[in-house]
């Protein structure tokens, strides 16, 4: 019973931290279960995938009802995250657990470094073009993208940039655009989404750490929409590999139950605390926790 309560509490802590810092709980659940409770890494990954699906489904539902997530874009990229998850879920059973631990340590270090970097001021999320006429908004965004491309070409002397960006901002990608922004670089999205799926399935994380920058920086999606759409995509990405872990007996209901409830409750509490807590100090605490966990994972991998 004590172990069950500890698992519930650990899951809740992972959910609170993840919610406050905009990360899925997966990055903390796998170390919690492996280093804290001595579970095999693959079993921890399977449980983590279930937790990730649960928190993402609830959050994505709210984002969709508020019309923040872009369903069309999310579903188009999901096809490729699902393919990546299928590949990653299959590879995971061929790799040595120590290699997986090494990969996880690498992911922890990457996330810690990303969080330690100073963040640029958030750009305007959804501009005034988010009017009642979406077609007009798309047209406005298309002109804006073309203008930016032309300016870049003038500034840098790269005449090809303008025409490339204009060309990439048409066709299928353009039909995925939302009010006030124009989606481009769908080819880049395919590659990144597939990679995110592989990472998610191998390490039991949602993959938002790849998807959000991919959509925001690589495809022209506003940060807020990219975050919400990534949350939507995490569900199917994790589900595609979770079924593989489930069938191969790597999800233990007695571990998954308490942990998933803990993460779910923690994420709900975290979202309510988010406005009251100064995330700067929390971020540094989290970076220290990540660095410590990375060292422990490295010891496990090399030991």
């Amino acid at each position: 019973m004590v172990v069950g309560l500890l698992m519930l509490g650990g899951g809740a802590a992972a959910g609170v931290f993840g919610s406050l810092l905009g990360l899925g709980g997966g990055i903390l659940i796998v170390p919690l279960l492996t280093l804290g409770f001595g579970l095999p890494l693959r079993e921890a990954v399977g449980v983590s995938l279930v937790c990730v699906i649960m928190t993402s489904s609830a959050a994505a539902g709210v984002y969709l009802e508020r019309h923040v997530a872009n369903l069309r874009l999310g579903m188009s990229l999901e096809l490729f995250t699902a393919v990546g998850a299928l590949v990653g879920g299959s590879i995971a059973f061929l790799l040595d657990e120590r290699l997986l631990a090494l990969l996880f340590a690498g992911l922890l270090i990457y996330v810690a470094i990303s969080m330690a970097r100073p963040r640029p001021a958030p750009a305007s999320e959804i501009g005034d073009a988010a009017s009642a006429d979406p077609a007009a908004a798309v047209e406005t965004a298309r002109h804006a993208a073309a203008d930016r491309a032309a300016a870049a070409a003038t500034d840098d002397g790269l005449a090809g940039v303008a025409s490339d960006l204009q060309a990439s901002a048409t066709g299928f990608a353009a039909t995925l655009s939302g009010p006030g922004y124009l989606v481009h670089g769908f080819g880049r999205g395919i590659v990144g989404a597939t990679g995110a799926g592989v990472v998610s399935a191998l390490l039991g994380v949602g993959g938002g750490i790849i998807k959000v920058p991919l959509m925001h920086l690589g495809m022209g999606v506003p940060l807020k929409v990219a975050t919400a759409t990534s949350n939507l995509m995490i569900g199917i990405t994790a589900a595609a590999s979770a079924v593989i872990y489930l069938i191969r007996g790597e999800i233990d209901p007695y571990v998954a139950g308490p942990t998933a409830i803990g993460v779910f409750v923690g994420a709900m509490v975290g979202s309510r605390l988010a406005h009251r807590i100064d995330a700067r100090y929390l971020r540094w605490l989290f970076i220290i926790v990540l660095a410590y966990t990375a060292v422990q994972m490295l010891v496990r991998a090399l030991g």
Partner: protein
Amino acid sequence: MSGPRAVGGTDIVDLDRLIGRLLVWVTYAAVTLLVIGVLLMILDGISPLAGGPPLDPGTLVAGLIALEPAAFLWLGLLAVIATPVSRVIVAGVSFARRGDRTLAAISFGIIVVIIIGVVTALVSEA
């Protein structure tokens, strides 16, 4: 392929709302099943590290009637995994009814990928 009309139009707004509600309610249903399962675990004095029984769909109903913790936990976990899949099916059917062949085909493709994953895992386990 749909044109700009579908981008943020009222039909997409309705679909967003429908799928949003589906995700939230199925998640709450799954959480309820998991909470019942964990409470039964505590009442039965089962440690999470005791090693749970494998999934056996044939005994789920009997397990629920017998108030076995594992049965509630497995049903909850299956509901969790099925939530995003059901969202893709609902969206795919909706896109198909609206004549958006590209998004309907993408939805179908996602389901096919998941089925391939299931079949591959079953073959590996056999």
